[in-house]
């Protein structure tokens, strides 16, 4: 009995020693995380220039789908947050690489959720020229995602052709276009279409460290832009830019991006 107990104690000691040293060897250096944006139309893969039917019954062919993702942060299992500094990305359906955002130098930890803004925050939307590099460069990098007459970024752009749209005098095609933005105003308030997304996984955890690069696999369903809560009719609203109706559309797309799973 006594001997047995000693044995057990010894075993426990050994195990804890081993696990302790294991922990010690455990990689605690910061790592990378990938955010993958998987574009869908309902259950199918989203393809530009192919015929689709909107929930309101308009036949459409998309020609452009772009949006800003910014202010990314990760939530740890204990509820605390890690904010990725200066995180501004432009996702463009036509640029495969832009649909995979790799974030580096993320502190080693276990993360259960990712949060971000669809769009650009108001501080960045009003900052000086030198602070706007890369995709935020209003003149070049932002690639038509900037309103020059009303200094502000277009948060999300959806364009295409549809028999329900009127003929556009410049291209002579039946085109619709939705350019949604609005950061709340510089000196006096106006519409605010900044939408935050918080995507939690109930099952998966992202173990981040220098030797692992987990991926948050996000599903982006463009159909959500056209419904829930309001069916967007191209016939009635073929062009929506900086206008009150843009808030209705923003309320649709606020849940367009969902976390499907995390893979290690």
């Amino acid at each position, binding site marked *: 009995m006594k001997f047995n107990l000693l044995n057990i104690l010894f075993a426990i000691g050994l195990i804890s020693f081993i696990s302790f040293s294991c922990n010690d060897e455990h990689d605690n250096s910061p790592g990378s995380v990938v955010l993958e944006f998987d574009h869908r139309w309902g259950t199918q893969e989203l393809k530009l220039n192919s015929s689709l039917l909107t929930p309101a019954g308009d036949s459409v062919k998309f020609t452009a789908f772009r949006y800003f993702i910014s202010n990314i942060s990760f939530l740890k299992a204990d509820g605390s947050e890690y904010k990725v500094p200066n995180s501004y990305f432009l996702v463009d359906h036509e640029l495969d690489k832009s649909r995979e955002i790799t974030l580096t130098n993320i502190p080693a930890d276990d993360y259960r959720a990712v949060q971000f803004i669809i769009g650009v925050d108001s501080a960045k939307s*009003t900052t*000086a*020229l*030198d602070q*706007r590099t890369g995709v935020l*460069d*209003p*003149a*070049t990098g932002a*690639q*038509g995602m*900037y*309103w*020059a*007459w*009303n*200094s502000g970024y277009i948060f999300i752009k959806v364009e295409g052709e549809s028999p329900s749209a009127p003929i556009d005098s*410049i291209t002579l095609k039946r085109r619709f*276009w939705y*350019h949604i933005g*609005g950061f709340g*105003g*510089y*000196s*006096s*308030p*106006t*519409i605010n279409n900044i939408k935050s997304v918080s995507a939690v996984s109930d099952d998966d955890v992202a173990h981040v460290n220098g030797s692992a690069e987990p991926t948050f696999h996000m599903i982006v369903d463009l159909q959500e832009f056209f419904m829930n809560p309001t069916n967007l009719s191209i016939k009635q609203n073929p062009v929506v*830019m*900086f*206008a*009150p109706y843009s808030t209705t559309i923003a309320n649709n797309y606020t849940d367009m991006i969902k976390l499907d799973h995390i893979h290690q």
Partner: protein
Amino acid sequence: MSKIFIAFSIFVLVIACVKEKNDAEQNFSIRIPDHFPAVNYDLTLNPISKEGFELGRKLFYDPILSRDSSISCGSCHQQSAGFTQHGHDISHGIDDLLGTRNALPVMNLIWNKSFFWDGGVHNLDFVPINAITSKVEMDESLENAIGKLNRHPQYPSLFKSWINVDKIESKDLLKALSQFMAFCVSANSKYDQSLQVNSVQLTSDEFEGLQLVNTKCSPCHSTALFTDFSFRNNGLVLTGDLGRYKASLVDSDLYRFRVPSLRNLSYTAPYMHDGRFRTIDQVLDHYANKVVMSATLDSNLIRKEGLGIPLTEEEKTKIKLFLKTLDDESFIRNPILSEQ
């Protein structure tokens, strides 16, 4: 005696001009007039230098910035027209597409609190993007213009000697344009001179005109810039242009436009956001007799007895005489600001 005095004054003026020019060439700083309000543009983020200014001037007058190299900033902002467009109510642009608004003067812009008639832009550096990307909302970018500049025989070395960059980026182009525009300060009108000690004086009619402007026009056309940069509906017959509402989407901003300066009016006709008035007489007639009611009409233009601003013919004459003292001939003729 008086001849001697005039000769002496001319001598003093010439000396003053020469001195000013030398100063400008030496340290190339913008002279901030004492009687102007606080500057809004952060000059520390884009310190003015001779190279930067000259580069900005070259760009301002170079059609290379437009898609088909047909027009320059200077085509719509002509110095002789107080940096607006001669005789155009709404400006003509590329492909002769009509703009929808009357060009605003490139003048005293470092004091602006916002830009354009609806105040949609808040920083001078961002203003030219609108002009260069031509058609509203048509996905054109400055990329082309930047490419052309980088391939140009002169621009790369000019940018390099200014800020030591090997490749021109859009922000460099925008800041160079700001260098030139920041320099376009008009503060040497007769009115400005009358504020200096021992200088010219306004005639008594002009002075009465000033007082009339101060009492009747001032809640809006106030400070030495003769605008408070607020957005107001001054009672014009409404058209389809929704004004400030376009940028704010707030109902109370419907048909409100940024109050323009009253400087250099002799050169900048026609007047108002759509250039509907060709003469100052028409403008004064508007305020006196033609103000129309609408939901957002400025309360300063609503009285128990009626709408607008009561003005006798005599008062109108005096106001016109005073407005003339805001013309700054030296500004529209300053060779430093002209195409070289």
